[in-house]
């Protein structure tokens, strides 16, 4: 495994965290072992599809890196006060095992029910966004790609402030979160072309969850600023650098669409539910992403629905998912999938999972679904790439453990 610190900002965060911890360890003589805790999670996965072109890095040859990842979290609480420092470092096989600081924050308990988080936190876009990498926490091998896939959300964390409040109302539990911050350096992979740095994005949002174990609802709204200015231009540059005539073709169609504007805004809205009735569980979520300056990103609408049943340690489940875009001229990403799978709780901290997914993309000639590819042709201009199968089967296997 080759671990590389991704960028200087990550490196600095990691250094600050360990320096802080060291200072407390050195100067706090009453330090007890339990004030410093370390936890981790590990997913070893294998996947293969029957398609020549890759989707989420998976194609017709056995792949061991796309789903595999390891995360380590260290938490330090000086004495029994309200302050806590937490850092979570993550290395993903899909990202060449580069080490990233996914979370690194100071957590302050304002009251029993209200906490503030300052530093790097995960953006709580959807219901499972925050625990996306912790496979042991949910039934699937990973949350449904139609909603949680990389193409829909190009970044996962931000540097800023978040306030969480939880409580009880009419014997129902509720939790709300208000946050804002910046994502400083986003590596983006669009249609197989990687863009190393797209500049910074400001993002803020609010989430609210209410219910009980029997039934709960979670809604969120998020707004991003400077998205168009910072993201789209590098994409255009990247397309041009590999000699693809996308820019020219789009410009020919409507020159106004391609000009970057200040304050380009993106909105993400979502609503989801979870329900547990005895051994039966149901989950569903709907989301919409709107970008004001729409090209090359159209408005997307997506959802998933999962039903499962726990037979003791064996938990079979079925998931339906759909991803659709309003403007299909540049990227026709419409896609549907049905996934059958199970989770087997081998020990109390290790789960073995298996899934078979049937994925179908739109039948139009320019359809790309969520393949990591460009369309076969654009406005009659052939883009020389691997043909895209309109229907594919993907088989995934994983072992998830926490320690």
């Amino acid at each position, binding site marked *: 495994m080759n671990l590389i610190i991704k960028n200087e900002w990550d490196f600095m965060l990691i250094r600050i965290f360990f320096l802080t911890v060291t200072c407390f360890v050195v100067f706090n003589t009453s330090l007890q072992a339990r004030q410093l805790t370390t936890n981790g*999670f590990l997913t070893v996965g294998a996947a293969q599809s029957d398609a020549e072109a890759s989707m989420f890095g998976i194609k017709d040859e056995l792949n061991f890196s796309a789903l595999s990842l390891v995360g380590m*979290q260290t*938490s330090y609480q000086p004495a029994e006060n309200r302050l806590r420092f937490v850092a979570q470092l993550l290395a993903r096989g899909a990202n060449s095992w580069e080490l990233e600081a996914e979370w690194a924050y100071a957590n302050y308990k304002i009251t*029993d029910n209200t906490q503030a988080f300052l530093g790097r936190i995960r953006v709580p876009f959807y219901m499972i966004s925050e625990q996306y990498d*912790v496979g042991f926490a949910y039934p699937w091998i990973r949350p449904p790609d139609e909603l949680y896939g990389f193409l829909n959300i190009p970044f996962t964390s931000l540097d800023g402030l978040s306030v969480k409040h939880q409580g*009880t109302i009419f014997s129902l*539990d509720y939790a709300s979160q208000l946050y804002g911050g910046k994502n400083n350096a986003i590596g983006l992979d669009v249609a197989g072309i990687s863009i190393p740095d797209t500049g910074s994005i400001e993002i803020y949002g609010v989430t609210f969850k209410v219910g009980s174990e029997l039934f709960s609802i979670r809604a969120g709204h998020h707004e991003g600023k400077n998205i168009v200015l910072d993201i789209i231009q590098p994409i255009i540059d990247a397309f041009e650098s590999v000699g693809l005539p996308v820019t020219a073709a789009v410009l020919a169609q409507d020159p106004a669409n391609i000009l970057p504007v200040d304050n380009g805004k993106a909105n993400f809205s979502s609503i989801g539910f979870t329900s547990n009735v005895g051994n039966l569980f149901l989950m569903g979520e709907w989301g919409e992403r709107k970008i004001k300056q729409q090209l090359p990103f159209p408005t997307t609408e997506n959802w998933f629905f999962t039903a499962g049943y726990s037979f003791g340690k064996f938990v079979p489940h079925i998931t339906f998912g759909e991803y659709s875009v309003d403007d299909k001229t540049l990227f026709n990403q419409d896609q549907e999938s049905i996934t059958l799978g199970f989770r087997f*709780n081998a020990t*109390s901290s290790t789960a073995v999972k298996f899934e078979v997914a049937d994925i179908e993309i739109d039948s139009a000639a320019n359809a790309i679904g969520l393949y990591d590819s460009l369309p076969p042709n654009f406005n009659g201009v052939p883009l020389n790439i691997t043909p895209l199968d309109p229907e594919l089967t993907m088989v995934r296997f994983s072992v998830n453990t926490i320690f």
Partner: protein
Amino acid sequence: MKLAHLTFWSFLVLFSGKLWAEEFLVIVHPDSSIKEADADSIKRLYLGKTSQLLGVRLTPADLPEGNSVRDAFYEKVVDKDASQLKAYWAQLIFTGGGSPPTVQNSDQTMVQWVLAKQNSIGYVSSSANTSNVKVIYRGSQ
């Protein structure tokens, strides 16, 4: 008659887990104002959904993983097996949502801990010596 015997023994084997499940007692400091608590309130405290039990701020402690009294407590009061409980805490630990109760290694250390700490709550086997602490819930099948 053979069939009746077979049925009887099959049922006994099938339900033996339930029959022999451990009994447990939920305990607090003797000076605590709490006299009695219901399973749901104790569950909410142990899952970190609240830090209070009947209006009193309490710090909970667990027996170690794999302990049969711990398993009985979580099955009866919280309605989660060891794996479901780990998945629940995994969601919270790695997302800034809190951490599980600390661990006391035996009935004896649990009783001592509850005695030493005014605002604490724990559970022990029904065979433990609880004469110095207050029992607020009895778990039996």
